[in-house]
């Protein structure tokens, strides 16, 4: 090394490993949990997914930004990821829907990124050591390595983080049903994505999106046909309020459907415990087996925590029997639970996809069927 070239961006991991690269997007410092995402498409949806709040996302796909940024594919009102790590950002976008570049959008929203990293080495490191705290630092000059590491070590860990309150809607809002309204659903927003109410609306559901702090009384007072628990960031073990609301809903036997974070909350309401996965499931190619039918769905996932349980396991709860209805054949991880005596089910993955395959979309139809059965 001749020493004349100073890298102006660095990714510092809490175990001391440092990856150098070039600044990408905004300049500055971003702290969060470093996780890798293996989707080859859908970076715009990933960046705007509230479940990635306080995470530094590493994209394993090497070329990012090829299709630019458009006005249609955001999954929420802003970019939520804390920091962004890529290998090769596109120099120009190419897509008929693109209105601007990814780099400009990151810059506009103040998201600090780093490019030129050997993202594969980084991914292998995270796979072996687990997701961990990290910091992206970029600018004309960077602090000394020790100083950067200290900042990372001073940041709060993901375990024990209660984050839904930061991403939830401040005020309730309604997404009207497409066509005739058939059902009214109260959706607890723990970090909901735009496509979720959209897919429910397509099925004749009027969706009332409620702040995470909504009480069970307020929620039940709306007399919803069903209750929906959204995805969201953070440690499910901190979600005592949402768990209690869920227990009330179960007690009243209102049909309930949860996804992702919502799956963990239903699980907790049913008495299951949660744990942090070493590096999580973040991708759009993850197989899930439905225990009853044995069929496989390829699903979009984004979770760092999971429910304890065995595929097909049946257990007793305060609300009657329940079962582990879905699992991931890659690692046996619980991917869905179903109450057998009350109308409630949930999955750990994203039937609304965006980004990701649509294999699980029929779960929304199943939710409709449960509400129909209850109403009949």
């Amino acid at each position: 090394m001749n020493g004349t070239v100073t890298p102006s961006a660095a990714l510092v991991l809490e175990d001391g490993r440092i990856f150098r690269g070039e600044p990408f997007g905004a300049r500055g410092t971003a702290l969060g949990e470093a996780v890798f995402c293996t989707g080859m498409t859908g970076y715009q949806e990933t960046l705007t997914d509230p479940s990635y709040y306080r995470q530094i996302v590493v994209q394993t796909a090497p070329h990012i930004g090829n299709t630019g940024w458009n006005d249609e594919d955001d999954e929420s009102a802003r970019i939520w990821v804390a920091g962004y790590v890529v290998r090769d950002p596109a120099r120009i976008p190419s897509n008929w829907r693109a209105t601007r570049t990814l780099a400009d959008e990151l810059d506009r929203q103040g998201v600090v990124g780093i490019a030129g990293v050997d993202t594969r080495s980084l991914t292998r490191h995270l796979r072996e050591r687990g997701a961990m705290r990290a910091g992206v630092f970029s600018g004309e000059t960077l602090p000394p390595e020790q100083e950067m590491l200290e900042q990372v070590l001073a940041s709060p860990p993901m375990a024990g983080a209660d984050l839904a309150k930061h991403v939830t809607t401040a005020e309730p809002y309604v997404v009207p049903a497409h066509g005739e309204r058939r059902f009214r659903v109260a959706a607890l927003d723990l970090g909901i994505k735009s496509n979720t109410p959209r897919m429910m609306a397509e099925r004749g559901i009027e969706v009332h999106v409620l702040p995470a702090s909504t009480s069970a009384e307020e929620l039940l007072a709306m007399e919803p046909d069903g209750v929906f628990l959204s995805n969201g960031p953070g440690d499910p073990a901190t979600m005592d309020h949402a768990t209690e609301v869920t227990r009330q809903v179960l007690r009243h036997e209102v049909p309930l459907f949860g996804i992702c974070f919502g799956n963990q909350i239903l699980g907790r309401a049913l008495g299951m415990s949660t744990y942090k996965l070493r590096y999580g499931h973040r991708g759009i190619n993850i197989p899930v087996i439905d225990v009853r039918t044995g069929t496989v769905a390829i699903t979009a996932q984004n979770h760092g925590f999971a429910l304890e349980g065995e595929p097909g396991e049946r257990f007793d709860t305060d609300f009657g029997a329940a079962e582990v209805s879905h699992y991931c054949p890659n690692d046996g991880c619980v991917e869905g639970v179903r109450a057998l005596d009350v109308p409630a089910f949930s999955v750990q993955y994203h039937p609304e996809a965006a980004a990701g395959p649509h294999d699980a979309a029929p779960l929304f139809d199943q939710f409709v069927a449960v509400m129909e059965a209850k109403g009949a």
Partner: protein
Amino acid sequence: MPKRDDIEHVLVVGSGPIVIGQAAEFDYSGTQACRVLRAEGLRVSLVNSNPATIMTDPEFADATYIEPVTPEFLEKVIERERPDALLATLGGQTALNAAVALHERGVLDAYGVELIGANIDAIQRGEDRQKFKDIVRSIGADVPRSRVCHSMDEVRQTVAELGLPVVIRPSFTMGGLGSGMAHTEEDLERMAAIGLEESPVTEVLIEESVLGWKEYELELMRDKHDNVVVVCSIENVDPMGVHTGDSVTVAPAMTLTDREYQHMRDVGIKVIRAVGVDTGGCNIQFAVHPRTGRMVVIEMNPRVSRSSALASKATGFPIAKIAAKLAIGYTLDEIRNDITGETPASFEPTLDYVVVKVPRFAFEKFPGADPTLTTTMKSVGEAMALGRSFTEALGKALRSLETKAAGFWTQPDPAGATLESTLEELRTPRDGRLYAVERALRLGGTVQQVAEASGIDPWFVDQIQSLVELRKQIVDAPVLDEPLLRRAKRYGISDQQIAALRPELAGEDGVRALRHRLGVRPVFKTVDTCAAEFAARTPYHYSAYELDPAAESEVAEQRERPKVIILGSGPNRIGQGIEFDYSCVHAALALRDAGYEAVMINCNPETVSTDYDTSDRLYFEPLTFEDVLEVVHAEQQSGTVAGVIVQLGGQTPLKLAQRLADAGVPIVGTPPEAIHLAEDRGSFGEVLRAAGLPAPKYGTATSFEGAKRIADEIGYPVLVRPSYVLGGRGMEIVYDEQHLASYIERATEVTPEHPVLVDNFLDDAIEIDVDALFDGEELYLGGVMEHIEEAGVHSGDSSCALPPITLGVTDLEKVRASTEAIARGVGVRGLLNVQYALKDDVLYVLEANPRASRTAPFVSKATGVPLAKACALLMMGQSIKQLRESGVLPAHGDGGTLPPEAPVSVKEAVLPFHRFRTPEGQGVDSLLGPEMKSTGEVMGVDSSFGMAFAKSQAGAYGSLPTSGRVFVSVANRDKRAMIFPVKRLADLGFEVLATAGTAAVLRRNGVPCTVVRKHYESAGDGEPNIVEMILDGAVDMVINTPYGNSGPRIDGYEIRTAAVSRDIPCVTTIQGLAAAVHGIEAAIRGDIGVRSLQELQAALRAERS
């Protein structure tokens, strides 16, 4: 519910000879299928006429039938083997068509054979364009507007509605044969007529043009539980209008948002379900409008395809293997992902690298052929490369091709090229158009201009623009420092390219020295299907350069077993095809068995050698000096490299031998000096003189004057050719001084470094091909092949028989003694191929190649001895004596002493003439000569020559006629020799047509015949001339030998191209005629049976002992 228990015996159908559009990928898929089915405990029978395949090795099936892949022969095999099921979805279009024919003839029903993988309905729904379009519409997806037509009138009517341009696609042809884009009325008339002709059901689809739309493909798999996964998306850099086989393609898709990609995935899944591919794979092609995003479905293949092979190699997801398992009842979640070892196959691979495939063309072999790329596939092979970015993969892919240009900037720009001329050039797709893209940008064109002219997506054009910018930095930098060098390497720029930009670095070697001094070396990453989410167990590697100092290499240490690195043969091309891959695979298998760690380097995605479980380690890398050296370095770092094998992959590795040895790489087997001794005419002449062996008189010339002097001295005709070539590139037989002058003029590079060889041409000699093993002491004569065509036809294009059918014992003894003298004189250790010409009892040595030859697999199959395996072991130090003791070679005797009852094997070449047209739409000449033109070969084996020859013809061209009209027109020197065979044809009941001169001779000899006019003698009285008769289908076989000298022989040309376009047998040599008559006699007797290779070889072994 795992495997079905009602299937115990499966008949696997292969794809026959390698042709354009159907290449080695089906050996790869068929081999995987056979392996899987046998591992599941099923009995496997196999039919494939192509001896150069791994799948037809006797150990891969219980009963291997090297028989023509035609319904007639398949029925004979079914009758004999009584399989429960037939698997045709892994043998390309040939196997699929054969399966449909068997169904239509009621054979499958009669013998109770179930079609597995895809049933008849699914095949027809996928292949019948109209049915397919209806299905796509019924699931709510879009298709280009179109209509199926059966006559020219219907065609004209349809175009009146759709408007020009339109696409013409004949039904049931493979590789897009006969299809194309009509821009004008004239195009339409001509192309639709050809299309109707090419279609076996006289049917073409006339379709709305989607020319210039973005083109994508998805590879899908479905199991019996209706689980569907998308294995891979592929984006074509060349937009719609260029056949995907001729396009530069990229995986994964680069310019789709998730919304668009998921829409494509949804449609793909609905299509595979609606078409009803129950258990297996399929490939679906899409077009997307670049400005509106309208997506239409173009077509599907309800089977494993060329793209499936590419997708398998690109992702590490073995489609063919899994398709075979699904076909016998497994579901995706029951099948393990080999690479991770833990996760199931029910997932979708995700890539953290970019894969680029580039096609390899051979237009130089077919003078006059239109080099424009259209919807008819014309490429003969392909190279694939992996990199951590598009530019890195592209750079590696371009240099993998072994074309004159080895990546950008390695050849001068065409004289007088301007931005305007280059943009104009880009409007018509041709071979190497990415070079024109780069040139246009370098000459100041904008990304927009280039994208508009070429139709290539701006993202790809901009990637090349980034290279143009980097080039400027490299050229302008005062000194090439480490950061800039690292950046250049990261963008896929080779040492050779850098050397071209920085002349002061003293060439590629200087750049490499600098690079190594600065510590700029690649890291090796792993293809793992999952972007590193799970640990990979299979060492399937590719190189990449990272800027990041924290970059990691993933090559595992292995210090227990010595490593042997096998250099493969690179992209298929005419002259170097699957036969060389066969030998490389055999070496890998033999070395693994012998306790070595076999390491393969190759860049051809179609092959068995690039299957991750063929060798212990696979490096998917270009076979250039730079790339090979880096792999050797990585392997030396991780263990002990006992040797590098350059002898088995054809000319590609052989030409690296000396440089690798100079760089200290341990080359095993025949040393580079010995290779030089055999390849350099002067030194080889010395070897022959020392051994007292005659060779045709020859001389070496560096100018016309020199060549003329030599030709005058040794006498015309002479054979002229450049030195150091494979496949006879640029060879010609020259009959007079005038043609000699024109040859020298055309041979652009005649310099002291690149002299021209002038040989005495032995007219009417018998050519003999020999493959032998030599260990330094003892010779094992692998096989002696007698060519059916006379000397002068390239050995790769001529048919041959083993054992030799007319050679006597003394001839064979001479062959043995000469071969041993050459092996000893050259210093061979391993395989050696020698070509001889026998004339007037003198055995002339034509040439010797100290490497595995094209015929090694044929000889191995015909004699039941694995020559390439034996070669690999010899190279690692074993002796022939030891190999005889261990059973690799027979205990006594060899290929020169086959027992009298040994069956006769005939090899026939398959030629691609019907795929090429001149820009005016005429066929190209089908004449054979000293330059090799065939793409593949078939083998016919039976107890007598006639039957074996008949099978070889059936395998290559469809059957010989057993009745009808035969047209005869031969050169004067052949008139005497043709009398007897033509008389025999007349006696067998053929009607003989002949031109006046030929007819006179025949009549004088009592052969009744009808005189027909030559084509230029048309009298205009309505009486058709011979060309018209052939085109009308009134002739069943053509016998036409060329008149005298080389160059365009107008009359014969018209006749032969007519025969080619009608796909009727066209015999162009008198020897071929004699063989054809033998074959016809055998076919008329109708007693041609089928026997498995296992039975034939067991009989041979019994007779030997």
